[in-house]
């Protein structure tokens, strides 16, 4: 392999991982914007999506199973908000963050009992375990293209939703100034529920497309939540598009680290860069100080 195609192979590997972190990071941002809560159960949505879709494929076709899983997890997300966060709205944000950690553990244990400890996966959407697409000397699984395509579509779709639809604008209004949004007649409580549902659905969709590559098991959520959180911080909390850049950056950094250092050090490299960025820009690459202060009022 020559240097060019080798570099491309690492880059593709990094982008694959990074796009998954990006989706988790977007989920963090959506909920953070609407509620000020960092939802550490974000990775569990990814796990639930994959698990449900795998189970559903026993009964229905793959596209129906994926759609069903995404819808079901969206409802789970809404239900969590209605059951836990709405009644506890008066409590501090810190308390609610602790609740998300608790929920993450509860969901994991529930998944362990609903399913089992075994690893499972969806079939490859196109081709199978050995098929690969060659491009410029590098080779990737066609599923990687599915992941990248789905994530790209989701990001564009989300952007359009937030920018151009009434609901999306209402959601942004809630995040920039909840009181003013309320005065303008926006039901902020419902917007918070919507943000949970949306972020759960996005996570579930990611869980489905990555399942053939990474495989799905009940414990996969927590490590993804940590990486996704790092990506969200790197991109700047509160900026969903920053999350995309943050996620891709963490993924590519890991791949670059593997190419130069022993593979065991990839996390060290990624987090070292995260720390460096935070020293220079405490609000992340694309986070704005103003947005954060507005939230804290």
């Amino acid at each position: 392999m020559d240097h060019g195609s080798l570099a491309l192979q690492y880059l593709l590997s990094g982008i694959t991982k990074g796009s998954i972190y990006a989706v988790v990071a977007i989920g963090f941002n959506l909920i953070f914007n609407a509620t000020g809560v960092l939802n550490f159960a974000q990775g569990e949505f990814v796990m639930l999506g994959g698990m449900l879709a795998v189970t559903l494929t026993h009964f229905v076709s793959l596209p129906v199973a994926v759609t069903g899983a995404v819808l079901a997890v969206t409802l789970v997300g809404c239900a969590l908000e209605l059951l836990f966060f709405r009644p506890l709205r008066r409590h501090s944000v810190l308390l609610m963050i602790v609740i998300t950690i608790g929920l993450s553990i509860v969901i994991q244990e529930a998944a362990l009992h609903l399913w089992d400890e075994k690893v499972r996966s969806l079939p490859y959407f196109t081709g199978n375990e050995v098929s690969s697409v060659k491009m410029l000397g590098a080779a990737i699984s066609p599923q990687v293209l599915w992941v990248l395509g789905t994530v790209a579509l989701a990001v564009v779709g989300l952007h359009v939703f937030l920018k151009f639809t009434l609901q999306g604008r209402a959601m942004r209004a809630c995040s920039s100034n909840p009181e003013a949004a309320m005065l303008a007649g926006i039901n902020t409580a419902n917007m918070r529920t919507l943000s949970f549902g949306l972020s759960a659905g996005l996570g579930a969709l990611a869980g489905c497309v990555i399942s053939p590559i990474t495989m799905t098991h009940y414990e996969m959520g927590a490590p993804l939540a940590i990486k996704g959180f790092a990506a969200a911080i790197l991109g700047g909390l509160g900026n969903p598009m920053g999350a995309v850049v943050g996620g891709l950056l963490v993924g590519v950094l890991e791949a670059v680290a593997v190419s130069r250092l022993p593979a065991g050090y990839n996390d060290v490299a990624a987090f070292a860069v995260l720390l460096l960025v935070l020293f220079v820009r405490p609000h992340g690459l694309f986070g704005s100080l103003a947005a954060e202060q507005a939230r804290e009022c």
Partner: protein
Amino acid sequence: MAALVGLLVGPSLRAAETAKTIKIGAIFSVTGPAAFLGAPEEKTARMFIDQLNAKGGLLGAKLELVLKDSAASSEKTVSFAKQLIEEEKVLAIIGPSTSGETLAIKNLCEENKMLLISCAAAETIVNPVARYVFKTPQKDSQAVIWIYRTMKDKGITKIAVLSSNSGFGAAGKKQLEDIAKTEGIEIVANEVYDRAATDLTDVLTKVKSAAGVQAVVNWSIEPAQSLVAKNMKQIGLDVPLFQSHGFGNRKYAEQAGVAAEGILFPAGRLLVVDELPRTHPQRRLLAAYKRDYEALYKEDVSTFGGHAYDALLIITEAIRKAGSTDRDKVRDAIENLKGLVGTAGIFNFSPTDHTGLALDAFEMLTVKGGKFCLYKK
């Protein structure tokens, strides 16, 4: 026959031993990252004890299994071991499932003179020998020798070694490095990856760029075993893939799908029992275990469950031989067990060998049409 002896001897001993139950502790990682080891072990242990009790137990007493789920955490294992020693006062402990957990309680058991029959593979569990610590799986070094000899048959001398950052991965990596020279194998790439890795294309790209790699050996017990197989094919790394004896679970071959075809790994004979000659000494025991397990739990047997089977087999056989539930007598009886047919092989223990298995306990297996079968040169 043995059960019959138990029945006959039973009543006379009952008076002396006051017919209490024989308590055996078990620490398995039934949940958590090593659940694929612990879950079949736990199921096997329950089945073994139920079957034995249905036949009248041992020395007239019923056996009781005190099960603990360590979730692959060494901290939990230590506290469970203390509980089993101090509160439950069990006769012996079987498990833990992983090497890391076993090493965490090796000294504890030795100091408390508690019999420990580990279901984990690492060499260091029985080397140096601790008087009260035994193990049932084949040794890592034996697996490595099988792999290297198969490589030499295929004319392979330059290899890449991948391992996960778990106790099993680290132990295997060390054996692979130590034995390479004597077997004439050169390791040209050597990478350790995170046990929770979800994609290994970057690590394998590095392997691909290393000069002259003729084969890859992967040493892990995690789902990453299937990842390596898939990712290798996806990035077009077309060399033979060898796995450790940790690949002995049909689930992994299924997860890797067609990418699993042609994977080579050393394993006990449980997975290929149908291919064994009728006269093979292990055939009857293996076929019975496979049939009973699959009928009871509706899932495929794995070699890991077999390790728990062997652990209980060794203890119960030693209790029978010793004719007593005195722990030191049972321990001495284990060291004198010869020719005991188990799932992993034929055990011949001695005061210096607490594994009891020789190189012939392994066979080289391969994956063909999604099924495990004997590898023929």
